[in-house]
């Protein structure tokens, strides 16, 4: 990725997403996060369950009304849209691929109707023949056979269903795709197939991905940049190679140290780093600071020196 001339497709500014606001069981699922996604890149979002990564994805595609903050897509704030045309365009440009290929396809619909639903709603096909042609092309793009279009979801394996889900997302010619754990439910040998397909589509159609996952090695492989979330906050953002080689935040270090590696020799000497989450709630105000170029860490004012020193030690900053 050439970030010098890159253009922001999505800007998330101080997004807060609370549930049950004002009640005793208020949940701050996403608590003041800010990040940008550039056109054509893959931005990976990692974190444990309950860290708010799925909520972030859903807030971006506007399945929720944000509690506070704003989300700019192509420079425009979705919340201020008034015309139906703007809304329709937004819904076309942004699509989602879901985690569970078994639950996200309607079992009573034929594959062609599942894939064509977006085409129908947005009136993208001239006539029936055009609609069928579009569906067949889409199925071919995702590596399925055009004969598959008159079958029902139960006739397909998990990997094939995920391909149908991808075809459905691509049907409206989106610019931005949110993939929420798209491969977690698939077998190892099938995961690689789906990841390769997603990468190929990105190259051919210039898609931008928000890739949400907890499998850290797969996220690193597919992402250009990665954001690490914990307790509803973004703790660190950096290029994927850099964040894995030189994590600056203690939580990122701890998370990475827990990843099992398919290498027995490495596993025998692996040392996990413990992390004490309470230090995040010590009352200090923290915000994202760019410690080294394009490497952001959530830090309090008196912690910046410490992170800068760490970055120096990892020679991320050149004097």
């Amino acid at each position, binding site marked *: 990725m050439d970030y010098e001339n890159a253009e922001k497709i999505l800007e998330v500014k101080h997004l807060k997403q609370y549930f049950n606001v004002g009640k005793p069981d208020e949940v701050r699922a996403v608590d003041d996060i800010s990040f940008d996604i550039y056109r054509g890149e893959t931005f990976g979002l990692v974190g444990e369950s309950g860290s708010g990564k799925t909520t972030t994805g859903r807030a971006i595609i506007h399945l929720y009304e944000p509690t506070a903050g704003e989300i700019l897509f192509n420079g425009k704030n979705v919340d201020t849209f008034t015309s139906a045309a703007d809304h329709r365009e937004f819904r076309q440009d942004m699509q989602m691929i879901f985690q569970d290929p078994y639950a996200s396809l309607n079992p009573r619909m034929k594959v062609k109707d599942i894939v064509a639903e977006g085409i129908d709603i947005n009136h993208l096909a001239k006539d029936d023949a055009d609609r069928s042609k579009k569906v067949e092309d889409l199925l071919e793009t995702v590596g399925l056979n055009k004969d598959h279009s008159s079958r029902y979801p139960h006739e397909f394996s998990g990997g094939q269903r995920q391909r149908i889900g991808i075809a459905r997302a691509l049907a409206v010619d989106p610019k931005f795709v949110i993939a929420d754990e798209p491969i977690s439910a698939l077998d*190892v040998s099938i995961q690689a197939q789906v990841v390769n397909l997603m990468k190929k589509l990105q190259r051919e159609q210039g898609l931008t991905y928000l890739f949400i996952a907890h499998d850290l*090695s797969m996220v690193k492989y597919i992402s250009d940049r990665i954001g690490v979330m914990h307790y509803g906050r973004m703790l660190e953002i950096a290029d994927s190679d850099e964040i894995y080689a030189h994590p600056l935040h203690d939580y990122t270090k701890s998370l990475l140290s827990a990843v*099992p590696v*398919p*290498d027995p020799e490495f596993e025998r000497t692996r040392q996990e780093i413990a992390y004490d989450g309470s230090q995040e709630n010590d009352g200090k105000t923290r915000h994202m600071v760019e410690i080294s170029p394009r490497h952001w860490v959530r830090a309090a004012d008196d912690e910046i020196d410490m992170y800068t020193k760490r970055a120096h030690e990892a020679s991320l900053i050149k004097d």
Partner: protein
Amino acid sequence: MDNDKNILEVRDLQVDFKTYAGDVKAIRNVSFDLRKGETLAIVGESGSGKSVTTRTIMGLNANNADIASGTIKYKGEDLLKKSEADMEKIRGQDIAEIFQDPMTSLDPTMKIGRQIAEPLMIHKGMKKEKALAQALEMMKLVGITDAENRINDYPHQFSGGMRQRIVIAIALINYPEILIADEPTTALDVTIQAQILNLMKELQDKISTSIIFITHDLGVVAGMADRVAVMYAGKIVEYGTVDEIFYNPKHPYTWGLLSSMPTLDTGGDELPSIPGTPPDLLDPPKGDAFAARNAYALKIDTEKEPPFFKVSDTHYAATWLLHPDAPKVTPPEQIVERQKQYATMHKELLAQQRTQGPVEEEEEKQ
């Protein structure tokens, strides 16, 4: 290895499931041994038969399962010939199991102290007070903080990781000879997974249980297993020590599995993947079941099933590529790298043995 060190011997096991569509041949002639104190990992995709194998050992298969042939010898006795009443005595006392989902394997209406103590009361006829006292010890052992105050809590009051610790406590309270762990950490986050795996290793040292560890995560296998068996389409296709499987794999399916998992160092545009999907076990293909997805398949693979070829005393693989007449093939790049690493490790090991030779050998004789 001597036979008397084997705590469990599975021979020629074949399990079919009767369905309306026909017989699903879920396990097709599986044989393996489990040694005392070791961890044997069984890896494979869903549908490869790993869970059916362990359910058969536990006698917990669904009603439509038919054990067509085979023996499962535990302490010299065939478990398949035991009555249901006898199996009930063995389950939870001699052989215990940890299931994948800690949310569904606990009784939501029973206090956890009671759940942990139950195996003691049922199998050892222990009085409630004494059993609860022992349950408390076990809770401390598996790392449940503030155990005294939490013994009367219900499962919903615990997090996923803590629940899995409770499940482990229940499984281990009777110090079973064999522990079957069926994807015990798949439902957990990586940080919690690391804690649970460490706990299992620690406890294994303390009570010297043999573990059969089922998973599809090769990273977890690398850290847990002493030996590994790779299953595909109801068969074991390769087995060996953890180093042999990870650094010197011989079966193309093992190659595919290892290279389709990105490590933190994997780059490049395309991830090596295994094309296609596993075969339908209603009608398993003739010859090698993996042939259709195998880039290295030979003509004979579609005609005749490969037998096990010996790679070393501990390492066997069922692929025709190991036949003396087979053409030489170069495995995928990542595998070649792994084999190089294996060669250097092997050399270092030999050098080490040469310097401290006599001591090592004596240890082995014991």
